[in-house]
């Protein structure tokens, strides 16, 4: 057992630490998604598919992002083995996805639908391989790993007034605690930093990191403005506005509390790009929840803490997503989706630090294997961010 806070994780050959041990079934292209989902379902819940809409008809940056995101999942520490399901004529190269997994020390197999001779044969071959891999996953045991080996994604969705007043500051205490211990935290959703970027930039550990944050926020704002409409309506969303959030500035100021009060901003990285620094990293993701979480997990986050005032069910195929609400009504009305209720901050005077300590305990429990609500309910949403037209 290591000194300090620890959890039972999977120490991987490449030095990373996983908290789940999935057999990942990756379709290279949308045309292979159904076969991939059937293969993964045959070994549920250890099997996890990554159904996606791309993999062909893409040029330039989008093709790179699709390929790199799939490769990032194939070498992710929460994945113990990989099956790549190819069609055979697509752009994303199955061999490269499999190689990414092998270079990280994981077994990887390729099943090609055209080479196997159709849906039925490819599915049968995939399930045969999947069952062997699932049996071998059972033989890999958990061991004590330090909390500092965690990369925590912080996220909010379905925000209301309680998000900025209760759940986000509580998650911020968790983020500061993890960074103090030597761990890493990643914050995405650039549009939801708009209006609060001055506070994050002031915490940058280097002038370059602060300047890069301001550049990325300006770029996203310019992209939104180029469409010639008011960002209000999507930022904040209609539900956000009903919930009391008036402007994107107000939403952002509440949202960035998730990233802690004192953790230094160390790095700003592209979508699904590797998170290499301890401390706080900002990732360039859109505000759409599933695209954002998909990117941050691709960057290496093993676990997601996701606050919601209105309540939202989404998860991820390979990373547990812990749902936290500061809204006492939502804790009751969407009880099956909520893991941690911190509404006592507003209704019973629970201090932020106490709520943060509860969240840290929850993170260690979930990292050690306890399923989250999203995992129990089978929420495995996955969506790769796209910026360019399909050609």
């Amino acid at each position: 057992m290591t000194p300090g806070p620890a959890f039972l994780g999977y120490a991987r050959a490449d030095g990373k630490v996983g908290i789940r041990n999935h057999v990942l079934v990756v379709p290279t292209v949308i045309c292979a998604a159904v076969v991939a989902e059937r293969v993964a379902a045959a070994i549920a819940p250890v099997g996890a598919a990554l159904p996606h809409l791309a993999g062909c008809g893409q040029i330039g940056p989008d093709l790179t992002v699709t390929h790199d995101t799939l490769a990032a999942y194939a070498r992710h520490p929460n994945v113990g083995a990989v099956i790549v399901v190819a069609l055979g004529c697509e752009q994303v190269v199955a061999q490269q996805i499999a190689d990414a997994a092998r270079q990280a020390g994981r077994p990887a197999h390729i099943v090609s639908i055209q080479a196997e001779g159709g849906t039925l044969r490819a599915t049968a071959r995939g399930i045969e391989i999947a069952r062997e891999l699932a049996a071998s996953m059972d033989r890999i045991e958990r061991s004590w790993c330090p909390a500092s080996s965690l990369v925590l994604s912080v996220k909010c969705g379905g925000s209301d007034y309680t998000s900025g007043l209760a759940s986000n500051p509580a998650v911020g205490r968790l983020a500061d605690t993890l960074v103090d211990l030597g761990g890493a935290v990643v914050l995405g959703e650039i549009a939801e930093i708009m209006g609060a970027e001055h506070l994050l930039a002031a915490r940058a550990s280097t002038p370059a990191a602060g300047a890069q944050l301001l550049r990325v926020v300006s770029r996203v704002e310019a992209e939104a403005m180029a469409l010639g409409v008011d960002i209000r309506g999507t930022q904040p969303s209609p539900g956000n506005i009903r919930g009391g959030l008036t402007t994107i500035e107000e939403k952002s100021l509440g949202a960035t509390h998730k990233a802690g009060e004192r953790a230094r901003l160390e790095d700003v990285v592209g979508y699904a790009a590797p998170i290499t620094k301890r401390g706080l990293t900002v990732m360039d993701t859109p505000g759409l929840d599933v695209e954002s979480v998909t990117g941050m997990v691709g960057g290496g986050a093993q676990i997601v803490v996701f606050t919601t005032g209105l309540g939202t069910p989404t998860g991820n195929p390979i990373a547990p997503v812990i749902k936290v609400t500061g809204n006492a009504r939502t804790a009751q009305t969407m009880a099956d989706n909520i893991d941690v209720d911190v509404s006592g901050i507003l209704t019973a005077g629970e201090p932020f630090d106490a709520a943060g300590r509860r969240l840290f305990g929850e993170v260690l429990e979930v990292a050690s294997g306890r399923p989250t609500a999203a995992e129990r309910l089978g929420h495995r949403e996955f969506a790769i961010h796209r910026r360019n037209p399909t050609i």
Partner: protein
Amino acid sequence: VIAAIVVNSGDNVATALESIDAGQTVDAGAVRLTAVDAIPRGHKIALCDIAAGAAVVKYGSPIGTASSPIAAGTHVHTHNVASARGRGDLQAVRRSPDVNPQGM
């Protein structure tokens, strides 16, 4: 008396923790005031008079500007606060040749 939360001492709005009816007394930390109109749960109430064009401040930072004069005790939301960010609509108006046609 209904409670409203003031996050930062520099704020000129507070957040209602329960729905407030017009005329009800609101306890917002150091300030006690009367609600001018109904304020839904989770929405904001002005702690002081805010002039049109002045910053609306929450979390100690500006969250937008008052688009009309806001009296103390008034509901503060999208009807009287404009965002300063992501306003592609204003940019489009500025760029449009039809906005200032000759002779007007």
